[in-house]
């Protein structure tokens, strides 16, 4: 249920930025969420639905960019897409790799009025 904390955090960041821009309504919010960021997308969407009530984001259009995870093999340096944190390198089968993309949890942009 940490998705609720994350949803509340997103709203806080968005409202803070909108207020700094003297806006009162956020019409659109764009998020970057990595597929290996440790967040269950459905749970996050569910949390957002309840957390946004009564906030500047109540009627906003939510754009969530799901970012594919990319790993680099520690042995042959081959770069590959991965759906988990432990798949071996498809080229040389080395089990050790570093994920260099796909752990993002970011508020990318807002459209405010």
């Amino acid at each position: 249920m940490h998705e609720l904390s994350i949803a509340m955090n997103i709203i806080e960041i968005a409202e803070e930025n909108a207020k700094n821009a003297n806006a009162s309504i956020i019409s659109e919010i764009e998020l970057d969420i990595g597929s290996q960021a440790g967040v269950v997308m459905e749970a996050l969407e569910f949390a957002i639905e309840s957390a946004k009530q009564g906030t500047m984001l109540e009627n906003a259009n939510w754009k969530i960019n799901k970012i594919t995870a990319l790993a680099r093999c520690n042995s042959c340096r081959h770069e590959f897409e991965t759906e988990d944190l432990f798949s071996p390198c498809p080229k040389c089968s080395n089990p050790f790799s570093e994920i260099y993309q796909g752990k993002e949890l970011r508020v990318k942009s807002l459209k405010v009025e």
Partner: protein
Amino acid sequence: MCDTCGCGHGDGVTIRKPGETEHNHDHVHTHSHEHEHNGEKHNHDHTHLHTHGHEHDHSHQHSVQSHTHNHDHHHHSEEHVHDHHHADHHHNHGKEIEVEQDILGKNNLLAERNRGYFEAKNILALNLVSSPGSGKTSLLERTIKDLGKKIKFYVIEGDQQTMNDANRIDQAGAPVVQINTGNGCHLDSDMINKAVKELNIPDNSVLVIENVGNLVCPSLFDLGEAARVVIISTTEGDDKPIKYPTMFQSSDICIINKTDLLPYVDFDMKKCKEYAMQVNHHLKFFELSVKTGEGMDKWYEWLKEQISE
């Protein structure tokens, strides 16, 4: 209040020491009564002392640098004279703000502040994470009892409810504060920041933070620890590391507890370590039994090494 979400919901986080039930505040109210005796006016001031037990929900605003880049360029050419009346153009055109802000930025920033504080005071901060029942508190109890004379241990206990764990640590002889997260599933750096202030940890000691028993949520929340220690026990499945990879990936140390039960359970030690290594090949393992004491010496050696470094 959870500063991670800044929610301030009434599901209140409380921070208490053993023996401390609630915060007690004495309020003095002065009531003034006016009586009239035989046509003469008397003025009595009564002072009542009311004792209230309060639970406070502190709402601290930490100054966080917001990394907001506002790209809103107004290009006015100086040579041109504009005849427009700008005041008339007061439509609200949607404006785009490039935010590019980490959602966990606030927690991470405060975690770094905690980390800096620990480093400056040469405090070794460990974050103990595991599922409920794998033996975090027992490991701590035994460690404090065995090493307490040589090493100054301080403990922050995290649970949704009860003072039980803090009372056990108190019995074992280490100063402790209990954080009850209410409905919260993890500790965050703000809770640690506050709890540390309650503990008054002296220089050159060890702070052990026992996180809420949960192998999922605490993995995302940096507390400012020097090392994250994940504990699994042989009564759990040996595939835990790949079932809950985020926790194992974010940990530095992996303790496999309850080795005394290995003859009775279907736990494949080799397989478990292999799985864990697939997720995080930097992991350092300790196989031990808190109950029998088997393997505890290696864990103690490691602790001592960390302090002398």
